[in-house]
């Protein structure tokens, strides 16, 4: 039986919806691919036609949120007076959108967003990383720091994923400690960029 593109899209969407519900109610670790397949009313083997692993489902879920975050940030980015503030604003709107996934974002950080995964291509998180870093590079240009080097981008990505990991485990009220950490990390990063730029001159 031929499966239409429409049916495929519907199945994919159903998998994402039930997986989100299961992750939220049972937790990421306790949810198996079998559980997801059952809830989506498909065979477990069929699930793998759509997603290679649970982590890929989380990444896909996060991608939608990050897309929304970018739209929100585009409206805010002109307000920022400094690069530090612009970067803070970017990550802050992402965290806001990612909030439903906070409890199970760590597996995504360990796989798709892992700083060491930069060399791997065509991984699910690759596009997300590329888009985010392009935004960061654009902000750096806009604030007069020119093109960011590969080292700078790698350093930034490490800080970024570190802040996300901290946020995922942050027990402070409304995760306020993450805001402080993020603010400080980005200030440190931008200070380093400026120092490096001055030395180049």
């Amino acid at each position, binding site marked *: 039986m031929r499966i239409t593109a429409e049916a495929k899209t519907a199945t994919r969407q159903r998998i994402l919806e039930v997986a989100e519900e299961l992750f939220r109610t049972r937790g990421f670790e306790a949810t198996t691919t079998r559980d997801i397949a059952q809830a989506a009313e498909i065979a477990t083997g069929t699930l793998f036609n759509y997603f290679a692993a649970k982590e890929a489902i989380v990444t896909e879920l996060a991608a939608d949120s990050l897309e929304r975050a970018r739209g929100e940030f585009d409206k805010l980015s002109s307000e920022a007076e400094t690069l530090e503030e612009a970067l803070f604003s970017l990550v802050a709107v992402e965290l806001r959108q990612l909030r439903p996934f906070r409890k199970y974002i760590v597996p995504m950080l360990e796989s798709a967003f892992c700083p060491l995964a930069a060399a791997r291509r065509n991984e699910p998180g690759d596009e997300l990383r590329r888009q985010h870093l392009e935004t960061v590079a654009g902000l750096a240009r806009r604030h007069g720091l020119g093109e960011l080097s590969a080292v700078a981008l790698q350093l930034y990505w490490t800080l970024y994923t570190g802040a996300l990991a901290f946020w995922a485990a942050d027990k*402070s009220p409304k995760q*306020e400690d993450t805001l*402080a*950490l993020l*603010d*400080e990390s980005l200030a440190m990063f931008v200070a380093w960029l400026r120092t490096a730029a001055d030395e180049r001159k």
Partner: protein
Amino acid sequence: MPASLSELIAALPAEETEGELPARALPEIVERLALRPVPVGRFRRIAVLGTLQAKIFAAYFFHWLRGWFKTADENKRLLAETHWRTALRVLDSMSYLRGAVMKLGQTLANFPDIAPREFVETLERLHFDAPPMHWSLLREMVRAELGDDPENVFAEFDKRAFAAASLGQVHRARLKTGEEVAVKIQYPGIARTIREDFRNLMPFLLPARLSKDWENVKDQFDDLRMRIERETDYELEAANIEKARSLFRDDEGIVVPRVYRQFSTARVLTMDRLDGVHIDDFLGRDPSQAERNEAAKKILRAWYRMMFTGRMLYVDFHPGNFLFLDDGRLGVIDFGLMLHLEGDEWEIFRQMDRALTTGRRDDRIAAMKEWCHIADDETDRIALMDEFADWCWRSRYCGGEFDFGDETDFRRGVDLFIEMVRRRYSRARPITPTTSRQQFGWRSIFYRLKAKFDVRPICEEEVKAAGWDRSDYATTI
């Protein structure tokens, strides 16, 4: 009563031995400091506290204490340049610190003419200067607390802070219903920072462990930490403000702002905005003696009203907490650090009132012994503390016009205080570090106002208004 924090500071390591700063560099440093924005962030704060901040604070204070006992010339020679250098360095590092250590700094700022003028001025800038949370961070804090962006929650919201608080910053705003308000927003993670600041201070207390009073000192330290941590909960502060506000009538010329609970949380506090000036600007207008006296009387009445009727002690007597309004009213703000007098604490305050009212030495000594756990055979301690208590309370029990601007008298109080610190008389009730903040606080504000008036009638009126029966001893005056 001794302030255990001073004791703790005096116990810090000896002064640092870095070379002198060339005098010609000072203007450049001042300019650099004035222009530099103040960063936010607890990690930097901790780093600063762990290194430069604590060292310099200790060195300076120690320098100052030792210099007090030298001759004027020698003192001048030893300290002149160090004052500037240290004041600048403290400003440099303290700008990063909005937690517990800044509160120590604020205490120092209450020593006009005693701590070097430059030092006090730099610290006072910390009270009032526009502070550091950038707009994006601020917006996240407001969103997290009030559920939406500031520009949606309020009809207008000024992105620039107009005042700094030790735990946050204050913005002008207007509610959609039209009220002009001040919105105090706490720095993220400040509660944790304070806990860590205190933990970082602990190693400096190690010398005090050798003291037989160590356990008592530790109790005081813990009490102070608990109270400052409590100050990070703006909901508690909102309750304090509401209680204080209920104590004053409109026609009394004392204003406590109204809290808007629907726009307030544990981290955001929205209140009526009081448009007034701080003490420096008030004095800059060259007010008459009568105006100065009136300002001091209002401060005193506000303090007594809260204490006698409200049974809450306003201890945060730094100048930034009093606003002089154009119409002559006094605005009182910042109720984060209040001491609620209940049970034993109220009883000991009653006992002190007896000493304050009668002026009898026996009553004074009984109160001091009770407060500081002094044994009968500690005669030197009793004598010194009695002298200090006499200095503290004289204006009250003597009655008649008291000249709070008398420099000699003010210095005598500081001399006595430092002598207590020098002798390490630290044993006292755990709440002492909190109450000692007011000890010089109100006197130094009155000193700066050069106020001259009789405090006793105000006290008696306030006691009467509280319905407090103390006929057993008050009739003896």
